[in-house]
């Protein structure tokens, strides 16, 4: 238990450091951008007739810091705002708090990403086992090639194809939105959840199809390496049933995949920009995309920050899960 806590503390520290670096990055990104948008807004407000003080505080509300004085002071203001979860307000649509938008969009992306990863993990792992066990047959070979291809193709290709076929050519699925606001109101009841699932199905499927190839390949090589381990032969020679041996194989082969899981979150969250854009699904990726189109820099850095934070948290969870499953790590305490 002490080992576990120590590990957790290490993760949290590293995660916080990472978030801090990203925060610093976003601060300077906007601050030092060619044609400094903060300064531009400030000057625009003055040109509109505001006093310098008024303009400064209005700009401060937008970006979370006053565009004057020493840089370190601006930086500290920005940080203290962040600690209070104040990400400023949208440049594009005045009065809308970035934090509200970001936190509102977040659950929808998490829904897509998690269901996508879960499905692709399960499918990929199962097919990976088949590909490894049948590796010298046509089935195994074609599974591997298909896996490699899908792993190699960028996610937007898959999303475009799905969208073209299932929302335009055949209108089986809705062409956008999280749910149909005209027919169902948010709440925890069957119709609403069903509608959410209906809207989320295609984008989540795009996530799943885009990433199951990676799991398939990882699982195939993991199974192949465990198959060469002595303990499986030992289990066979001890007369353990086929089912028991298969469980031994599967558990040992899945374990290393949890370390891959951590890395994959970054990729998958990154892919959300394409997938949400193509399916018109208003999540974090869509928010980031929209803020870029509108040059809404405060929104952009807020969305980026939130995506990064989500990836870091997912990383930590994946690693803790690994710690919990592998006795070699668990018992080190």
């Amino acid at each position, binding site marked *: 238990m002490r080992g576990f806590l120590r590990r957790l503390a290490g993760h949290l520290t590293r995660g916080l450091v990472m978030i801090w670096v990203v925060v610093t990055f*976003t601060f300077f990104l906007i601050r030092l951008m060619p044609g400094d948008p903060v300064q531009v807004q400030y000057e625009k407000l003055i040109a509109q007739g505001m006093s310098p003080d008024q303009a400064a505080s209005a700009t401060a509300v937008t970006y979370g810091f006053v565009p004057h004085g020493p840089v370190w002071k601006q930086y500290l203001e920005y940080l203290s705002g962040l600690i209070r979860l104040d990400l400023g307000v949208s440049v594009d649509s005045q009065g809308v708090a970035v934090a509200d938008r970001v936190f509102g969009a977040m659950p929808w992306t998490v829904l897509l990403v998690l269901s996508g990863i879960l499905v692709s993990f399960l499918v990929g792992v199962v097919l990976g086992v088949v590909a490894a066990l049948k590796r010298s047959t046509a089935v195994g070979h074609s599974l591997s090639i298909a896996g490699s*291809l899908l792993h190699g193709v960028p996610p937007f290709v898959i999303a475009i194809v799905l969208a073209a076929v299932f929302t335009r050519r055949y209108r089986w699925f809705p062409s956008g939105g999280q749910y149909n606001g005209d027919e169902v109101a948010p709440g925890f009841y069957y119709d609403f959840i069903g509608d959410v699932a209906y809207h989320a199905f295609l984008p989540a499927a795009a996530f799943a199809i885009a990433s199951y190839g990676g799991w398939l390949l990882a699982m195939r090589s993991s199974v192949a390496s465990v198959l060469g381990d002595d303990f499986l032969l030992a289990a066979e020679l001890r007369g353990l049933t086929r089912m028991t041996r298969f469980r031994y194989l599967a558990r040992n082969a899945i374990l290393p995949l949890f370390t891959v899981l951590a890395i994959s979150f970054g990729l998958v969250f990154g892919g959300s*920009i394409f997938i949400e854009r193509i399916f018109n699904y208003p999540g974090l990726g869509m928010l980031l995309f929209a803020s870029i189109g509108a040059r809404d820099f405060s929104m952009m850095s807020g969305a980026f920050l939130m995506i990064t934070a989500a990836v870091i948290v997912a990383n930590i969870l994946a690693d803790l899960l690994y710690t919990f499953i592998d006795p070699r790590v668990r018992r080190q305490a």
Partner: protein
Amino acid sequence: MRLSVRQRFWRGVWVALKRRPSRILGVIIMALFVFMAIAGPWFYPDRLPYNVDNMYAPISWDHPLSTDFEGVDVLALVITGTRGVLLVAVAAGLVTMLVGTAAGLYAGYRRGAADSVLMRIADFALTIPGFPLLIVLTTAMNFGAWWKMALVLGLIGWGGLARAVRSQTLSLRERGFIEAARGLGLPTRHIVTKELLPNVAPFIATNLLMAVTGYIYAQVGLYFLGVLPLDTSNWGVMLNAAVFQSGALISPDALPYLLAPLGAILLLTLGVVLIVDALEEIFNPRLREG
């Protein structure tokens, strides 16, 4: 017959390719794309001819892949669009290879504090979601010159390679031949280039290939989203127009215009997959002579 090292290497490449015909197909596909990138633009004028009366033309000898919404030949668009994207991707791949290999070798061979610091940075580069970062950077910085784009792409993507090279180096370091080389007083330069590098070469080669395709797709993705200016012609710009502007998703006439860039991406991926399959064997003398 005594062959030189180079002759023996190329013979090994041939043997590995011959083992599976699919690998030769992979080489042909890759050669096709490289040829398209280098020579493609020479076959067409700088400004492709357009004819608004001939939009989404039926497939014919003149327009084997139909035309776009302005009547420009789609095949010409696909071919001429290769060079710019590939150039940036190759350059970015080289940056990744240099930085990743150097960092991985250094961290794995030296260990200690340098290792810890480098790997923390690599972890960081791995964790930060690359594509969102790229979009943000692109928006903020407005990359004008192609090499700036290449540099940024290359620097975003080195973490994975560095980690892989480091763990390989660490395990090689435990093997006797590295210790023996140190014990013989061979200089570090020799140990790294002659003893370590050939053993991690397959990783690097595979990774370089994957990185280059990854960077091609990253650029195509940026164009597709419209983050990069749409004033050139390439697969991403085509996809952007097809999906978001011209309604190619609905109109069956426009289907070739949508399918052409998608097909190019699929074909390129296929080529890469087939070649990666051969690389491991090419670099491993044990597998090579089987």
